[in-house]
């Protein structure tokens, strides 16, 4: 009855960048990521999943995590050379897709899931947060995330029942390869990618948001505190920064509120192309990623064809209705 | 206490003399601080830092983690950047935990940097057996330190010398180890109230004599003095010299004495083999060979770790009787 194996993509670099200082957070250590994978696997096994595919990361996190299940499970790495960059996650996404994974558990923050979606646009995801900025992945206990993934992988719950494609921003850059953002795409006045962090509101020029969440952190919150837009709504929001409009006091990064001058706010429909021009740096989901040279053009476009994010609560509710974890007592003490 | 006009000596125990010396350094030098394990809240495991936290506050009297390498390193770094740290190494036996900081950093930094660094750091530490603390809390390892160019090493035996050594060490702009003795903590002695220095590198002729020289340091000074009294019965008029400072060593005072007495013995608590006494003996034969009427004798601990048992430890550490016996043997009495 299995639909396909469960993919695991853990980003060893998540939760360690310079935003940790601003966020007053300590480092998210890889031993804990390893433990999270183990708990997720336990959850998936409880739902009778036995097949796993994984991204062989430079830190060996997933391999180390799976080692203890060697006799009970079948797991294989997807063939992808580890480079220690975000490219690993993107390549792994392609590999996991080719391997026919029914669902993928990602460990990371917004940046990790973005890199994953670059390789597999509408990937079925159970994102577990181990990053610094987390709008996309939900805070969910890994055991339950694993159980939800297991239910999908075994077919106990159909993906279509608990997930629909998310909105994303497709980014075209003149003479260069395309890119993608899950939550927000921002043009900044900065000149370097540097430490990637987006910590200076004065540098923001323009932002396109797939959702504007007042209770989230990041550029999405700027819009969210003016005109909330949910993931369910079909439109997105375009913010142009500058004097003449409102000043919003927003948490632009974890642990960091700043005043942001917003000149204008406008709803944006799917398919609408927004042209921007360099010089500047494009930041996606809170991290500076691409440099635009002077005069170089780029286009931002909202689409609803992004990753299908599994609603873990709904998944477990359906499992409960269907009695997946329930059996009749034989009257004797009885182990699973 | 610095303002006191009297230098009248009072009787203080060794431990109180240590405290007074540190206290007067803290009063005198605004960049001085004390750091070590249990020195602040607890006042030191021997009570030698008692009251200092209350008087000087936690900025200047600092409890550290049990991290000897870290503490000594902290002292080296702070000294190189303008402070005058007094670092406590609770037991001398813990030198092994921080020997790199002592031997490769503290001792050599000034030389390696061509004189560009100045390291006014004082390290206080406790040596000595006698309290059944066994092999890792009873050693006398002064020879380890004396072998390192760049360090000064003092080993005061009396309350007077303890206070004066600490003040002299803290005023010196070199790394100075002041090796104290844990068996002597209650030893009473006259100690002037005002600050004073026991000059570094100057030996003290504690007991003048005419026909036999004993060089003894640390707690062995007191045993040697008792032995000297005993030897009087055999017509031996012993001169007892306490070098107080082992590095730099006051060779002149010892040689002058030997030239007068023609016979010499060195007494220390450390293991005799390759102990600091070997260096003194070598210097005597080099510089006063023609004056010697007997081989230079040495008394020290046997070549063994310090034992624990009350049945063994007294047989390990030299005492007045064993010193007198060895003196008689070497003098042919």
């Amino acid at each position, binding site marked *: 009855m299995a639909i396909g194996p469960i993919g695991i993509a853990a980003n*060893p*670099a998540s939760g*360690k*960048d*310079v935003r*940790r*200082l601003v966020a*007053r*957070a*300590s*480092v998210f*250590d*890889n*031993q804990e990521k390893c433990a999270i994978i183990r708990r997720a696997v336990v959850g998936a096994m409880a739902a009778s999943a036995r097949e796993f595919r994984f991204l062989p990361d*430079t*830190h*060996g996190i997933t391999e180390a995590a799976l080692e203890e299940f060697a006799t009970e499970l079948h797991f294989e790495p997807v063939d992808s050379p580890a480079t220690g960059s975000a490219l690993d996650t993107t390549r792994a996404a392609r590999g996991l897709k080719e391997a026919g994974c029914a669902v993928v558990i990602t460990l990371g923050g917004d940046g990790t899931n973005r890199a994953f979606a670059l390789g597999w646009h509408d990937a079925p995801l159970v994102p577990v947060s181990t990053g610094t900025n987390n709008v996309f992945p939900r805070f969910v206990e890994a055991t339950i995330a694993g159980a939800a993934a297991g239910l999908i992988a075994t077919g106990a719950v159909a993906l279509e029942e608990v997930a629909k494609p998310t909105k994303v921003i497709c980014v075209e850059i003149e003479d260069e390869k395309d890119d993608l953002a899950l939550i927000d795409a921002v043009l900044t006045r*900065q*000149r*370097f*990618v*540097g*430490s990637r962090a987006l*910590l200076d509101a004065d*540098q923001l020029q323009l932002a396109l948001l797939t959702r504007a969440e007042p209770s989230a952190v990041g550029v999405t919150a700027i819009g969210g505190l003016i005109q909330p837009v949910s993931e369910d709504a079909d439109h997105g929001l375009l913010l142009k920064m500058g004097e003449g409009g409102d000043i919003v006091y927003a948490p632009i990064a974890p642990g960091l509120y700043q005043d942001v001058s917003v000149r204008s706010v406008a709803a944006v429909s799917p398919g609408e192309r927004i042209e921007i021009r360099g*010089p500047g740096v494009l930041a996606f989901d809170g991290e500076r990623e691409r*440099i635009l*040279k002077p005069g170089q053009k780029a286009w931002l476009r909202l689409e609803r064809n992004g990753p299908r994010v599994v609603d873990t609560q709904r998944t477990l509710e359906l499992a409960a209705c269907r009695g997946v974890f329930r059996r009749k007592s034989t009257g004797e003490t009885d182990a699973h | 206490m610095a303002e006191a006009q009297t230098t009248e000596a009072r009787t203080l125990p060794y431990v109180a003399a240590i405290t007074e010396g540190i206290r007067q350094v803290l009063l005198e030098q605004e*960049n001085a*601080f004390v750091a070590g394990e249990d020195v602040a809240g607890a006042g030191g495991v021997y009570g030698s830092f008692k009251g200092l936290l209350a008087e000087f506050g936690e900025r200047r009297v600092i409890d*550290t*983690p049990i*991290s000897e*390498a*870290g*503490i000594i*390193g*902290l002292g*080296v*770094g*702070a*000294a*190189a*950047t*303008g402070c005058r740290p007094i670092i406590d190494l609770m037991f001398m036996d813990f030198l092994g935990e921080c020997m*790199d*900081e002592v031997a*490769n*950093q503290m001792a050599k*930094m*000034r*030389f*390696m*940097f*061509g*004189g*560009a*660094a*100045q390291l006014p750091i004082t390290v206080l530490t406790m040596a000595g057996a006698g309290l059944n603390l066994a092999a890792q809390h009873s050693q006398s390892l002064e020879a380890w330190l004396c072998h390192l160019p760049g360090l000064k090493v003092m080993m005061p035996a009396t309350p007077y010398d303890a206070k004066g050594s600490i003040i002299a060490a803290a005023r010196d702009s*070199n790394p100075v180890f002041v090796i104290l003795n844990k068996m002597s903590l209650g030893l009473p002695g006259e100690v002037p109230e005002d600050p004073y220095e026991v000059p570094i590198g100057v030996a003290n002729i504690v007991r003048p004599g005419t026909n036999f020289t004993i060089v003894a340091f640390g707690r062995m000074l007191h045993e040697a003095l008792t032995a000297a009294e005993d030897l009087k019965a055999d017509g031996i008029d012993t001169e007892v010299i306490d070098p107080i400072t082992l590095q730099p060593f006051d060779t002149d005072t010892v040689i002058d004495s030997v030239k007068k007495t023609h016979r010499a013995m060195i007494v220390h608590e450390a293991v005799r083999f390759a102990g600091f006494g070997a260096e003194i003996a070598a210097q005597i034969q080099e510089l006063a060979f023609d004056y010697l009427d007997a081989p230079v004798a040495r008394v020290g601990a046997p070549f063994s770790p310090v034992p624990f048992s009350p049945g063994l430890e007294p047989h390990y550490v030299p005492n007045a009787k064993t010193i007198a016996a060895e003196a008689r043997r070497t003098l042919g009495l």
Partner: protein
Amino acid sequence: MTSQPNDDTLRDMHRRMVRIRHFEETAGKMMEDGKIPGALHLYVGQEAIAAGIMVHLADTDQITSTHRGHGHLIAKGGDFNRMYAELFGKATGYCKGKGGSMHICDMDLGMLGANGIVGAGPPIAVGAAFANKFKDNGAVAVTFFGDGASNEGSVHEAANMAGLFKLPIVMVCENNGYGEYTAQKNHQAIVDVADRAAGYGMPGVVVDGMDVVAVYEAAGEAIDRARSGGGPTLLECKTYRYYDHVGVRGMGLSYRTDEEVMEWKKRDPIDLFEARLSEQDIMSKDDMAAVHETVKGELDVAIQFANDSPMPDPSTLLDDVYYVA
């Protein structure tokens, strides 16, 4: 909040990196030609770290270095003449010929010495940071150590004390993937040394050590935090040592592949930075070439100075063992 580097800062960092690169390339060649006595540990490949950090520091801020220390001194403002004189063992050197490469220092610049003992720097930097806090002088100490050194007890002790006393210090791990000749995977169970930060009660940050702007930004945050009383940070910079542990070709041991070296060289910190500077019209190719030429000229002068300088007089052998008032 550290702002982005302005054009002057960018040019300053470029110059510091170029100074290190040419100094080291020249020194490595001279060592292997037998013109420099003893052993040199070259910093080539790691320039972005020293430059991106040191540009934030004043002479009153202190650093402790490692056996691979030339780059740190150069980035802190070290004088080529006195450096080369020291490498040659001359009387005019930084240490009057007493220290050489592994103990090169400049106390006036707050450079508290390269160090021949792996892991010895952090406790000393903790002492400097302690003195800064004691004197309330607003200065920051930065200690550099490698992935290899991170396994030394002295580094743990120092880090613990830095966290405990909330000292103004940044602990910079230059993770070049090798402890001498042993790959990281064979010398520790973790890949990110920054993972240990939580155990010391401080934040840990990982940054791309081949990208000088990334280092600049992360170091700026950490240094500001230290300076304003926020306490220490463990800043791990991922980098690579182009040459051998010692020298250029060094001992000729086979412990890594040429492919691996080539792979890292594709992300050469100076090449990467120069491409960006040029793209952004901050420096033209000619501007950059002029920097290289000027630095080479300064090196020629320094080597001449070192050559012309006298050996230390044997009578100075015992000088500076002790301070004499």
